[in-house]
């Protein structure tokens, strides 16, 4: 069965869709009430709010799907902000003609991811647009979390000598979707790194006390994220090319298309800035967690004016900047 415009008009068909697909999967008492807003009992604390819309193609990719990604992305944004994710809202835009089974799979994937993260999906919305006015399905997730009072992460805490840590190989998400997105007869066994990080980050923040700042290097890759950090914190960042973890097949795929791994999206990575003293222990701690074995110190902070430098394996130095324009396959 396919999605029809009437599934989005707010009438009987919309109700049926909500009941059969969303309520059935998300299984939250607030959704069952079908009210204008979810009402959540006494909440308190410093509150974190984040929102992201997901317009990715393909909807399903090795290691995940848009549903998993949408929940993961928002949970990770809260987690790297030092917050414990609590609630998520979900806003779908569906293209007329989408297979309902596709939608169900995605919704179930969201539900699983949210459950795994211990987060409730408390409100949702669905709109259907005419065929050709959407690329199958877009989804917005907005997340709300609460912060422990004693944890304060900030650009301002970053100091000369601090270390830059990443919890594993870069560019895996972008690489896993590359072939289909660029319509190239390419295949590799690269799986997306799409993964919720709130559990790990919660442990890190409990265990270590000199984590200055965190970011998840999604769109734009580690280059863009570190450049943003360097600019905001008004420091320089120096990376060692050889210590940046990257799978050979990720490197291979990207070289074939003329693309640079530093600018490619990650969906289960966190960049941590921490004190030199704690940095090695943080890496060891991470390495002991399954799936985080490639964690590594990849660089350090120096006083500066917002530049990111990369020391190459031949001993040269080059600059990294923010992504400029969507990465396109190149011949030269």
């Amino acid at each position, binding site marked *: 069965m396919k999605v029809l415009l009437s599934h989005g008009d707010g009438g009987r068909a919309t109700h049926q869709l909500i009941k059969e697909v969303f309520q059935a999967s998300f299984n939250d008492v607030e959704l069952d009430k079908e009210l204008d807003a979810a009402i959540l009992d006494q909440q308190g604390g410093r509150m974190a709010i984040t929102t992201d819309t997901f317009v990715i193609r393909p909807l399903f990719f090795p290691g995940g799907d848009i549903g998993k990604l949408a929940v993961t992305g928002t949970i990770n944004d809260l987690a790297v902000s030092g917050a414990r994710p609590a609630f998520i809202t979900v806003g779908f835009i569906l293209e007329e003609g989408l297979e309902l089974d596709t939608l169900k799979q995605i919704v179930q994937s969201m539900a699983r991811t949210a459950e795994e993260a211990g987060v409730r999906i408390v409100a949702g919305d669905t709109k259907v647009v005419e065929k050709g006015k959407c690329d199958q399905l877009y989804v917005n997730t907005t997340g709300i979390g609460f912060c422990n009072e004693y944890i304060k992460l900030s650009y301002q805490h970053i100091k000369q000598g601090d270390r830059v840590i990443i919890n594993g190989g870069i560019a895996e998400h972008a690489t896993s979707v590359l072939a289909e997105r660029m319509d190239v*007869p390419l295949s*590799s*066994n690269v799986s997306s790194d799409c993964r919720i990080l709130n559990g790990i980050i919660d442990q890190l923040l409990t265990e270590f006390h000199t984590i200055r700042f965190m970011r998840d290097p999604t769109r734009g890759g580690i280059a863009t994220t570190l450049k943003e950090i360097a600019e905001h914190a008004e420091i320089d960042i120096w990376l060692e090319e050889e210590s940046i973890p990257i799978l050979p097949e990720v*490197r*291979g795929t990207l*070289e074939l298309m003329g693309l640079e791994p530093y600018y490619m999206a990650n969906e289960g990575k966190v960049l941590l800035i921490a004190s030199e003293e704690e940095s090695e222990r943080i890496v060891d701690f991470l390495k002991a967690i399954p799936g985080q074995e490639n964690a590594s110190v990849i660089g350090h902070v120096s006083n500066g004016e917002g530049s990111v430098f990369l020391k190459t394996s031949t001993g040269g130095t080059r600059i990294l900047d923010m992504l400029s324009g969507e990465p396109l396959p190149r*011949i030269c």
Partner: protein
Amino acid sequence: MCLSMPAKVIEIDEQRRTAKVDYLGSQLQVGIELLEKVETGQFVLVHAGEAIQLINEEEAIQSIRYWKELTQG
């Protein structure tokens, strides 16, 4: 001006004159019409979706050996 990668031929489709090649673990479908002949297991240089040359493996090994020896000399 001409981004090219050395890749190993792992499968040949003689009909369509294409081959599947492997570069560092990722596979790409490329044309082989520009080559006189090619066999699986050989290396080819890939540019813009075409294999533009059969790589001389012997030379590849020799050259690097030459430079290695030089450092010891």
